[in-house]
């Protein structure tokens, strides 16, 4: 059986606090917040009136888009995915041709509630007004879950598998897992993998109704997202997209591509909505099994891990997650690695989270730093009971990261974990 080694050769990102990987690196280092107040949420009686949303400029779009995409596309999830995906493709040193198809490359661009992006308000209104005749040709692709991949592929012209996975908050990590498996089996040379989430009241409203969003920071948005903090009361919704070019080692080396990291192991599973697992809560045994199995496939021992990129949304689930990590890594308190999440700056970008956070992890590996977990006044004592305080950096520290593990957990009792190793020539 073919068993290719798989590496990452390109990254791209559109996040609430930065546009593009270079700006995202700066933002992570300086702790730049992308969380803002939204008047519409206030006027509609939302408890949580803050969110993280990328500030896309016309200039930034013009770097990547032709005039049709620039002026006509209005689904944010699709715009973010096209920008992040195109950036990753270029970052990998790959080109695209107007009139050529690349059958060796495919893409997996997942999404969460793509059709509920705020831009679709106009579509719903026209239909409800009996005016469906006034819907244009974009109404279908801008509401179908595979719309982001479809629009992105109109730019790139890839001819291998084009897939749009949807698995709640693990969507981004899972897209990378799926691309990795496809490449491992030798079915393609390159897979552009990532995920996206749009924004607006139709996505945030239902989370708000569940009382799982931050409701105490409408006057102080940038302090609203506080993963691992004693005072955290919920997550702040976010949006955006991350994308990575995955490639067989052979393909990357044959074209002399820069390699960020090798994917050593992955695992995805479900707690079956049993044994403590439910629509919203994880089955802890499944979570731990997922983390452990990704390490086993990677042949990585717990003490080799330099950084954990957690899910850590800023809810009461954070301390449970820490306990799970500790158990999965063998239970030794003094050997627990550094752990962080960019969510204090960008919120929880739902289906976009996994890919954006993987890009953050790759940037930290490449540039040898661990960004801070900002907004923590006092770490939740249930967390410090498990791991040493100094393993939770509150500001950016310089550190060589050779091995990192990234996991996300999602609605429907879904878990996904990925182990990465920084690439060193030879």
């Amino acid at each position, binding site marked *: 059986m073919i068993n290719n080694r798989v590496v990452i050769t390109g990254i791209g990102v559109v996040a609430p606090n930065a546009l593009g990987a270079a700006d995202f690196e700066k933002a992570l280092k300086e702790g730049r917040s992308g969380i803002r107040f939204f008047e519409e949420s206030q006027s509609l009686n939302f408890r949580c009136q803050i969110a993280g949303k990328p500030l896309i400029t016309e200039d930034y779009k013009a770097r990547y888009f032709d005039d049709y995409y620039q*002026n006509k596309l209005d689904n944010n999830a699709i715009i973010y995915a096209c920008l992040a995906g195109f950036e990753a493709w270029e970052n990998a040193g790959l080109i695209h041709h107007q009139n050529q198809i690349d059958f060796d490359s495919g893409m997996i661009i997942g999404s969460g509630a793509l059709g509920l992006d705020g831009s679709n308000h106009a579509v719903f209104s026209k239909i409800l007004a009996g005016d469906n005749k*006034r819907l244009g*040709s974009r109404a279908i692709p801008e509401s179908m879950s595979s719309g982001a991949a479809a629009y992105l592929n109109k730019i790139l012209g890839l001819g291998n598998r084009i897939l749009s996975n949807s698995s709640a908050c693990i969507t981004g990590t899972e897209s990378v897992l799926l691309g990795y498996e496809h490449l491992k089996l030798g079915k393609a040379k390159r897979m552009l993998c990532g995920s996206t989430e749009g924004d607006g009241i139709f996505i945030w409203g239902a989370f708000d109704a569940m009382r799982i969003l931050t409701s105490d920071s409408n006057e102080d948005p940038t302090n609203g997202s506080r993963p691992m903090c004693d005072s955290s009361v919920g997550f702040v919704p976010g949006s955006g997209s991350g994308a990575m070019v995955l490639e067989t080692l052979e393909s990357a080396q044959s074209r002399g591509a820069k390699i960020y990291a090798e994917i050593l192991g992955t695992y995805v599973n479900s707690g079956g909505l049993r044994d403590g697992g439910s629509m919203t809560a994880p089955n802890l045994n499944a979570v731990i099994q997922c983390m452990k199995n990704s390490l086993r496939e990677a042949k990585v021992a717990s003490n080799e891990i330099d950084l954990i990129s957690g899910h850590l949304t800023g809810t009461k689930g954070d301390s449970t997650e820490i306990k799970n990590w500790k158990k999965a890594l063998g239970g030794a308190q003094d050997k627990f690695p550094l752990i962080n999440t960019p969510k204090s700056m960008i919120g929880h970008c739902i289906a976009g989270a996994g890919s954006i956070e993987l890009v953050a992890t790759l940037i930290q590996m490449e540039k040898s730093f661990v960004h801070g977990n900002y907004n923590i006044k006092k770490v939740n004592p249930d967390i410090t009971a498990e791991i040493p305080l100094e393993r939770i950096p509150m500001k950016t520290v310089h550190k060589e990261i050779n091995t990192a593990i990234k996991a996300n957990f999602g609605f429907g009792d879904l878990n996904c974990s990925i182990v990465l190793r920084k690439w060193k020539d030879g």
Partner: protein
Amino acid sequence: MDKDTIQEQLKEIIAVYVPDKEILGKLTPEHDLINDLKINSAHIVDIVLDVEEKYDIMIEDDAIMEMVTIGQAIEVIYGKVQEK
């Protein structure tokens, strides 16, 4: 409103849907929207919606079928604007 004005305005409306912008510089009434200008047929609907909004007119399905060339599109728009 004369037909020359409509042609100029129509050119602006269709520009975004035309892949090769060079042809817009030498646009004539004989140009076929799909075959010459290479406009994706799905975008004909978009162009009709843009035109309806621009001129505040309604173009029925039958009239859309008649809008094959730039010249025919101008005639349809001109007729509808006159009826207003």
